[in-house]
């Protein structure tokens, strides 16, 4: 077979591959919704939560108009998250409820699991242990074998146990969550470390608690999350206090107070 034949075969293959390619068509409105969503993501990462909420709202409006089910769920979950950060739990819960109680549209189980676990977190924030437990178990039910929320669900379980003053159970869940989150999500791994530190404090294991809170602090600093950094510092202060290091405890509290003064979340 000569060079020309090779070239001819190659060209034919390229043309065939072009014919076999089916271009996914998306409407201009869907592309606009995606654009709003991406701008909102960037605003959220910059800590501009109100503008993120507005942009997610725009994306949701477009997705509802063109009945893009996946987009509707995504943006409702994002809005719930933003309003939770903005300190408006009632509004956040309303978005989650409209997703969880929707009878007309069918959302993916992973999206329902995310909604249920967020709802559980909101209930826990209100000290409603029973409600939080019910929703976290619903979330676990939606979460299939390839669900990526297992680490989050275990963290919430640990949080519920801490709220119920059950240190042993909290330690069990948080350590389980830490092993699940270690390789997959730094954000959740730091949450697991913070929960483990709280459980260790409750169990009077102050040295271990101090070590864990310092590890969590290092991660949260790399993530740039002021509220969590403050929480880590307060945990360290408490551990130092219990260890009798009054001066160091005061220093950590002072550091935490300076962060709180910035009022950034």
């Amino acid at each position: 077979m000569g060079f020309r034949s090779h070239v001819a075969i190659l060209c034919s293959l390229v043309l065939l591959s072009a014919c076999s390619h089916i271009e996914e068509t998306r409407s201009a409105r869907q592309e606009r919704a995606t654009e709003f969503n991406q701008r909102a993501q960037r605003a959220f990462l910059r800590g501009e939560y109100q503008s993120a909420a507005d942009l997610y709202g725009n994306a949701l409006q477009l997705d509802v108009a063109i009945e893009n089910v996946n987009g509707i769920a995504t943006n409702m979950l994002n809005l719930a998250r933003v309003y939770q950060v903005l300190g408006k739990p009632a509004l956040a819960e309303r978005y989650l409820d409209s997703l969880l109680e929707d009878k007309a549209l069918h959302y993916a189980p992973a999206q329902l699991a995310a909604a249920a676990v967020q709802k559980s977190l909101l209930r826990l924030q209100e000290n409603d242990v029973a409600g939080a437990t019910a929703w976290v178990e619903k979330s676990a039910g939606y979460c299939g074998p390839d669900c990526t929320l297992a680490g989050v669900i275990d963290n919430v379980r640990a949080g519920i146990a801490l709220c119920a003053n059950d240190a042993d159970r909290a330690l069990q869940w948080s350590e389980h969550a830490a092993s699940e989150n270690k390789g997959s999500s730094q954000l959740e791994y730091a949450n697991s470390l913070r929960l483990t530190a709280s459980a260790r404090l409750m169990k009077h294991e102050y040295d271990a608690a101090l070590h864990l809170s310092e590890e969590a602090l290092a991660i949260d600093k790399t993530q740039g999350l002021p509220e969590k950094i403050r929480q880590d510092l307060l945990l360290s202060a408490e551990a130092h206090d219990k260890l009798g290091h009054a001066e160091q405890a005061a220093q950590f509290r002072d550091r935490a107070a300076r962060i709180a003064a910035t009022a950034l979340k």
Partner: protein
Amino acid sequence: MKLATYNLRLQNIEKRTRQFMLGAIGVMLLVLAMIASRQDYFHRSTSIYFFTPNAQGLSKGMAVKFIGFKVGSVQDVSMQPNATVQVKVSLDNEYVHLIGQDAKARLIKEALVGESVVEIIPGSQQVKQVSQNSVLAFERGQDASTVVETLAAQLQPILSDVHQITSSINNPNGDVQQTLKNLNQASGSFRETVNQFTQLGASSNRKLDGAYGKIDKALDSVNLSLATLDKAIPRLVDKADTTFENVQSATADIRKVTNESAAEIPALVRNTNSLVQDGQETLGGVKKSWLFNGMFPKPEEQMLPVDGYVAPRQP
């Protein structure tokens, strides 16, 4: 018999060749007529002239406009023996009666970024209309870069004045700083004296006299400082006045330029907008073409990661 047939065929060919030739000549004439029409050869026009020191921005074929309408074109741009540039303009006869002998030709740009045209600025109605070989006065309109340069030149002395005033105020050896220092010292000694007066009371007349002496001295010092300040302030006020005058004149110029380009700016923005839109559409098209679509990942709506953190309730 054969020869007769041959002659007949020859005549036939000759006839067809003639027809073809006539047809070709006809087409050529038609094309020539179209070119002539395009070049305005059938148009009755009046040639007028203007002279300029240099030919920059002027070219043959350039449009000539009157109150926004095309009324002619530049026919020729040529250099004269005295090193000036003669520009021949052909005006459509239809419009000649509107242009007076005192009209001016001005070289302008149609937008901030756009084609240059020769604009005829109307003269007074009473003056006789232009005729064949009339000569118009010529001027150049300001383009964007000239305007910016003028503004920059006007702003420079203002900035330098502001800088000078600030330096004068900040100068530790300057009148203002020295006066403030003196005032500070005077108020210090005054405070000291008042303290002494309070402590001693009226018990010691001798000491009281001394205190009065110090008050007098302090007040003298204050007076001296105020006198220096009196001298320094008018100088500063004069300087500030000049600066504000400059600022006012620059502001007036800026307002004038803004008013002049007010009509052009929306067009410029519109043009830029459509240019950007074209660019976006082209890029969109390239992105969608099968050869490249694999290289550009399609953006999807993203979900924020769920955060299993619960903020502790504030007591």
